[in-house]
């Protein structure tokens, strides 16, 4: 067996080993060595992720049976087009935030780089796993790393937000286990492919129990994704934590969305017999209400970071709309929008960090303050990102939203989706214009003593911002890819197919 055949597990192994190496005594005390190793590892991760992407695109789904135990008995990793795309996204994001953090934010607390690595290991694992209990384990890996990262740098605000975040997620984890126990009790397996095969065969009295388990899972994933009644922790957590961590968290909500897609969109999707599409009646109103509540919160935001956090909530709502429309077309559009919104939100968080740094005491609040020394370049990036986040042409936000709206074909759905999604865009336009005016124009004098942005910080933001026009220029290619990914996702994977691929 060549090394190339083990490619699927590399996005999990690389961060794991690098994190452990970074904890060795000689390295854990030397930040400059840590930075070099960490950035090298991130570049390697990006390369591996994209090689895997091309491999999956060329050769179809890759299945990796850990220890060569075949599927329902052993744990498998499944790399299909959607999961590999998510791994690429997290690798690019990881590289950008590490570049940003090397400018100084990694100094404010211990073990920044190893924790980021553990976090990426958990995120990649959650995307690649083909087993429900393994998904739980990787959720815990990414959560415990995020608990520590969130409080990185310390401070009262962070401690308090972290208490909410940690305890809510611990309760979420207990519910996750209850749900898994319920599903195992009825289905007798936790392998995704095997579960999907057995769900249509459930007897009528097992059906209710399995339904309870499935909807409990929806609550758990919804908590991670920040969907409506479970989103209250999100703005506070994202707006108090340090800048690079907030940017990395942009993909954390997407882990929840991804799991909802995989479990409720496909496993309990069209082919689930008596339990077909059980989550949809819940997801549909929740998706629309998430956008509405997020948009209202955008209007009420008093500083840029809270505004960004609320933009994350609106994007979660938009993605939930794509899930609940439940067609291949909508799924494809949703995947496109998912790439765009992750990158754009992360870039906005990083930019907010620079703005905060240059405005001194006013930080990122919408009040009059002394002008930023590098207002020109920051303002330019702000406008670009605002255009992307609102969903105006020519950047990828427009394409993403247009694709989602185009995929809503039924009139009864369209009369709800169009006004709410477009209204959300209008509100984002108003709020971001107000934010831009007060941050860049309501100034008196210049804040000369302010710390200027480090080149690596600009490089990190530039890396993310450059992806947005690329998503439009290569829109056809990306769209073809998401179309295939959506078809692959929707057609599902039976245990037999899984084992054939594994051979």
């Amino acid at each position, binding site marked *: 067996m060549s090394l190339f055949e083990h490619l699927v597990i590399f996005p999990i192994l690389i961060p794991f080993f690098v994190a452990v190496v970074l904890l060795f005594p000689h390295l854990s005390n030397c930040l400059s060595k840590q930075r070099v190793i960490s950035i090298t590892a991130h570049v390697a991760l990006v390369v591996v992720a994209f090689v895997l992407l091309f491999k999956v695109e060329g050769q179809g789904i890759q299945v990796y049976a850990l220890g060569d135990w075949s599927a329902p008995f052993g744990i498998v990793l499944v790399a299909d087009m959607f999961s590999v795309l998510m791994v690429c996204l997290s690798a690019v994001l990881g590289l950008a935030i590490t570049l940003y953090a090397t400018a100084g934010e990694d100094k404010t607390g211990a073990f920044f780089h190893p924790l980021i690595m553990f976090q990426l290991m958990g995120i990649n694992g959650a995307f690649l796993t083909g087993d429900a209990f393994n998904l739980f384990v990787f959720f815990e890996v990414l959560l*415990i790393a995020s608990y520590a990262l969130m409080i990185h740098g310390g401070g*009262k605000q962070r401690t308090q937000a972290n208490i909410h975040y940690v305890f809510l997620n611990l*309760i979420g984890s207990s519910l996750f*286990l209850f749900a898994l*126990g319920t599903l*195992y009790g009825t289905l007798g397996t936790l392998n995704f492919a095997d579960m999907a095969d057995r769900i249509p065969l459930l007897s009528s009295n097992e059906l209710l129990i399995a339904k309870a388990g499935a909807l409990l899972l929806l609550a758990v994933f919804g908590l991670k994704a920040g969907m409506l009644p479970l989103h209250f922790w999100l703005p506070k957590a994202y707006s108090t934590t340090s800048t690079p961590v907030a940017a990395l968290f942009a993909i954390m909500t997407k882990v929840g969305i991804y799991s909802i897609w995989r479990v409720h969109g496909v496993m309990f999707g069209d082919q689930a017999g008596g339990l077909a599409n059980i989550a949809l009646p819940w997801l549909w109103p929740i998706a629309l209400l998430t956008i509405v509540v997020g948009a209202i919160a955008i209007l009420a935001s008093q500083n840029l970071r809270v505004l960004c956090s609320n933009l994350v909530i609106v994007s979660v709502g938009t993605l939930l709309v794509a899930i609940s429309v439940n067609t291949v077309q909508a799924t494809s559009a949703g995947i496109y929008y998912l790439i765009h919104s992750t990158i754009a939100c992360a870039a906005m968080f990083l930019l907010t960090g620079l703005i905060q740094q240059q405005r001194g005491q006013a930080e990122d609040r919408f009040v009059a303050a002394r002008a930023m020394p590098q207002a020109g370049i920051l303002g330019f990036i702000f406008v670009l990102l605002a255009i992307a986040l609102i969903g105006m042409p020519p950047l990828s936000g427009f394409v993403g939203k247009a694709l989602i709206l185009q995929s809503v074909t039924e009139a009864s759905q369209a009369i709800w989706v169009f006004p709410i999604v477009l209204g959300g865009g209008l509100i984002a336009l108003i709020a971001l214009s107000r934010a831009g005016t007060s941050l860049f124009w309501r100034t008196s004098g210049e804040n000369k003593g302010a710390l200027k942005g480090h080149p690596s910080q600009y490089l990190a933001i530039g890396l993310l911002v450059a992806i947005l026009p690329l998503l439009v220029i290569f829109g056809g290619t990306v769209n073809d890819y998401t179309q295939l990914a959506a078809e692959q996702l929707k057609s599902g994977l039976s245990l037999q197919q899984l084992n054939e691929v594994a051979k």
Partner: protein
Amino acid sequence: MELVYAICVGFMSACGIFLMLRGHTFTLVIGLTLLSYAVNLFLFASGGLTIGAPAVLNSSENYADPLPQALVLTAIVIGFAMTAFAVILAMRGRADLGSDHVDGTEAFDPLSEEKS
């Protein structure tokens, strides 16, 4: 046996949820611990309850489902680590915020009002 087992799990979850609704980090940690005990028992029972049956193949005619036992073991380890983290965080919160209320400051509490 199933009934007693179910009542135990249910009662423990109920106690855990009650304690978690109290809004102080100390009761929250105790509540979470109870809930994780309950969930461990629940997972253990998810493969069906059998008595006197080993979880190893070929050693007896009837055997217990080994998978839930492996799941419980993983869940216990993870739950233990998470509880340890939560305790440390609760202490940090008590030191930083000067109160063990989850919001940092004491909110209106009808129960403590009655006592005074």
